[in-house]
């Protein structure tokens, strides 16, 4: 595995071009790398560091702060059960236990076939349908034990492939207008060349 594919390298440079300072692209680039590889590989960390003119340790040191960035492989489906207050009141711990039984793993573990990783999450802002279950950050609200069994069956059979991309892909679209970085141009750390980065005097409205 290298770093970014040629297509993703173009995307990476477009993302960097959106920001007044290149380092701001660090987290978006980590998401891009995870959408490509499912997790944040050492090669991706080196390439992101190169693109942003940082040391790999700076990229890793930032990434390790964030729950969504994984420097170890995770399953194709990251199943999260929120157990925070509203979900706990709605039976989340009981549901989490059932998930462990159904998947045959404990929280934080990945199934042997690499399909599922189970996680206990904090509040996901799905508190009106407790317990809030997410699969690669797609919401399934108010499931009971049978609902979980059905969900796992559907995921195993690939019936939700259209709705739920493999782990790492969060949003499937990207900014596609007003891009300033041409793919061939080297990203410029610390300064964006676009005219919109400069403050423009405003025409005063007619009174």
């Amino acid at each position, binding site marked *: 595995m290298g770093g970014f594919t040629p297509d993703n390298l173009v995307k990476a440079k477009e993302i960097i071009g*959106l*920001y*007044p*300072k290149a*380092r*701001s*692209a*660090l*987290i*978006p680039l*980590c*998401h891009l790398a995870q959408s490509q590889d499912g997790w944040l590989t050492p090669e991706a960390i080196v390439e992101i560091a190169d693109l*942003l003119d940082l040391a790999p340790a700076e990229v890793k040191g*930032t*990434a390790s*702060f*964030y*729950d*969504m*960035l994984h420097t170890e492989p995770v399953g194709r489906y990251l199943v999260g059960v929120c*157990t*925070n*207050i*509203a979900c*706990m*009141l709605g039976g989340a711990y009981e549901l989490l236990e059932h998930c462990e039984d159904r998947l045959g793993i404990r929280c934080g573990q990945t199934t042997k076939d690499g399909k599922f990783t189970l996680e206990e999450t*904090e*509040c*996901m*802002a*799905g*508190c*009106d*349908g*407790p317990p809030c279950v*997410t699969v*690669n*950050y*797609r919401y399934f609200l108010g499931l009971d034990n049978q609902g979980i069994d059905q969900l796992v069956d559907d995921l195993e059979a690939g019936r939700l492939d259209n709705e739920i991309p493999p782990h790492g892909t*969060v*949003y*499937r*679209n*990207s*900014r*596609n*207008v*007003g891009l300033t970085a041409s793919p061939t141009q080297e990203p410029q750390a610390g300064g964006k060349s*676009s*005219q*919109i*980065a*400069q*403050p*423009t*005097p*405003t*025409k005063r*409205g007619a*009174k």
Partner: protein
Amino acid sequence: MSTPKMVTSRLGFEDSFTIDRYVKTGGYQALRKALKMTPEEVCAEVTTSNLLGRGGAGFETGRKWSMLRANPVRYLVVNGDESEPATFKDRMLIERDPHQLVEGTLISAYAIQATQAFIFIRGEFALGLERVLGAVNEAYEYGAIGPDIFGSGFSVDLVVHPGAGAYICGEETALLESLEGKRGYPRIKPPFFPAVIGLYGEPTVVNNVETMSNMPWIISNGGAAFAALGAGRSTGTRLFALSGHVKQPGNYEIEMAKSTFRDLIYNPDLGGGVRRDNKVKAIIPGGASAPWFGPDQLDLHLDQDEVAKAGSMLGSGSVVVMDEETCMVRAAWRIARFFHRESCGQCTPCREGSGWIDKIMRRIEDGYGREEDLDLLMDACDNIAPGVTWPPQQTTICVLGPSIPSSVAWSIRMFRDEYLIHIKEGGCPFS
């Protein structure tokens, strides 16, 4: 008179998130109107509206804007991190009316003369990120973003920035650190007030998603029409995210200061009452950071100052209802555990205190508690927020730490007997 829907007017439409629906329902007219006003006039409307920030602290938006340091470069950053436990209003606005958020952001950027704006959206909001990214692309092609928007001479870019999972990034200075590509460590104030030294060291306004989503209505109808609703400083409508043991959990947009917690919980058009018609045992009035209220406080109005005077806060606008079958120790422990998991670790009282409190609470809930543990917990709270008052004394960089006692200390004060039963009986009487 029925209260106008300021931020939820479009939610009845299946396609509420598309630019077609948005424009058909009056979308982007407010931005066109604002661009014909001077930036000062737009600011004045917002000041007149007295719109209080909807992110948690409830600061007047117009006043916040007026405090911005004079500087050629200014930034606007919208806070869509929404991770306060039991808060789920911004996710709805982000997913279901992204253009309203974009338009509100553009109006505000013009008002403060920021030519670069960011919408920071919690990384877990996959659909929300897709919707707002889509809306920004559409708005750009529509001429509302980019150089010389709607031929006004004003140029602005708007970048949608994904977070990556950290509650602390909702704190405005941590959010700016994160947006700069760093760990989400809050900055110390002073000097790092965003309005003075914000993103990349430049003056920056940070406002919540719901705050921004109110702007199109305020500009279309005028700040005075907004201020005519509500009472005192609590003007306009507000989204209340109701969860826990109510029959109809959900987001409800209601006029501020006119209804009480009891109305919110029991009105058939709102919460619809408590499950199994049980009694309310306690409520959390403004997100997990807020001190709890008992059943005797349900007649307080949903008014920021009234709730503050009663010793808590409206905070993020979420209300959790816990009924008589709920174990108060377990509920408080789960919130303590959250703060332990999410403490960024910079300040000793918060980092160590949250860990100890989590462990001691767990021990009591599991039946291994000792009577001295209650004093120990209060002592730990006192180390984080001396005096254990509300509003709290702050010894830490941000207010995550001082929010930890809100569940722990208040549940001990309100339900000491229940703690003692856990300790005497060696276990939880509810399980």
